[in-house]
């Protein structure tokens, strides 16, 4: 469902990864590994279309990609339900009844986003993925600040709801989510220090 061919991407005008190729079939996930700074976030942003690749191509069904990063996009002055409802409306989807229970947010439904703890915010951010109904997820460190119970909650949702329904996920993480997913170590794709092509034509 997701094809990546000979992809090279840059961060801040400096090439970080070259010639990354992989594909993920429907219902499968792939875990990106690599030390800090190797380019996991850059790769995910490039895959999600937030920045153009230097070369190579990314192919997945149009309008099916969703990106989730360290920043959850939670509005502190809106309640948990209002936050989720907004993303559902933007994506033209209905709010699933069970989503709050799935991410253990039912008791927090009327709390303001600003009063949530870091882990609760993260759960709300992840619950957004269950609301928008997108098939191809690009997840950047989805489990940061989650406790073990919440990690399990998220992994179960990913496995039993998202992947089981034919979705795809590309996950950059340092911990073991307990998914039966292949791992891709990005270290061999690291761009050489003098690699060219990173300059940003928009400013030339």
């Amino acid at each position, binding site marked *: 469902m997701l094809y990546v061919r000979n992809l090279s991407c840059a961060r801040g005008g400096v090439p970080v990864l070259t010639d990354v190729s992989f594909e993920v079939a429907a219902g499968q996930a792939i875990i990106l590994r690599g030390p800090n700074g190797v380019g996991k976030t850059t790769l995910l*942003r490039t895959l*999600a*279309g*937030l*920045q*153009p690749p230097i070369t190579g191509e990314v192919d997945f069904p149009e*309008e099916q*990609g*969703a*990106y*989730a*990063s*360290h*920043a*959850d*996009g*939670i*509005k*502190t*002055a*809106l309640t948990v339900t*209002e936050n989720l409802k*907004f*993303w559902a*409306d*933007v*994506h*033209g989807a209905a709010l699933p009844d069970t989503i709050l229970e799935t991410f253990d947010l039912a008791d927090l439904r009327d709390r303001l986003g600003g009063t949530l703890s870091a882990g609760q915010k993260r759960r709300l951010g992840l619950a*957004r993925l269950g609301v*928008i109904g997108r098939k191809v997820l690009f997840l950047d460190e989805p489990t940061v600040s989650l406790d073990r119970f919440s990690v399990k909650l998220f992994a179960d949702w990913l496995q039993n709801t998202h992947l089981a329904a034919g979705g795809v996920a590309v996950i950059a993480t340092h911990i073991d989510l307990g998914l039966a997913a292949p791992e891709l170590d990005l270290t061999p794709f690291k761009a050489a220090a003098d690699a060219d092509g990173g300059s*940003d034509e*928009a400013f030339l």
Partner: protein
Amino acid sequence: MIALLLRDLRLAFRAGGGFGLGLAFFLIVVVLVPFGVGPETELLSRIAPGILWVASLLAALLSLDRIFALDFEDGSLSLLATSPLPMEGAAMMKALAHWITTGLPLTLAAPALGFLLSLAPEAYAYLLVSLLLGTPALSMIGTFGAALTVGIRRGGLLLSLLVLPLYVPTLIFGAEAVRRGADGLDPTGALMLMAGITAGCFALLPFATAAVLRINLR
């Protein structure tokens, strides 16, 4: 798109949203002018159109840097960029939300403040119409400026420097329409030109704003 507009309005009206700040600023600036200029009603009534327009322009400027900065900081802007909502539509809705929370209250409050500056009675209608036609352009141009400076720390000052020169045509025609109204002349020409500027801004700037946002999100 309506969801984004409603969310922005809701955020503006909730605690810390900053609704009313622009209006309060407008009020204070206009009230300060007679203190500075002195209580000569003839002089005040002559400069009133200009003062009201300059003050509303500054008040609109005040809340511009919030348009995209907050969404950029909490990550919603990246999420919006990957959502089915076109960035052009998002830019338009952001401008509209800014206008409803800033431009519209300013327009409605302006006649009351015109009274404080002893604005000529004939000019009130034109003051209202010129602000109604002109303030949307202020919001749209400001949204473009906010997109240019999103992600820059302390971008607010740079934003003012970028945006204020672009406000000049609207200011000239807006104040001119009110002045002509006060003098009993026909202000239609100035009003039409200003409406043209506003229409042009809404036709072109959403695209420019979206392009700039895409670059700034890289």
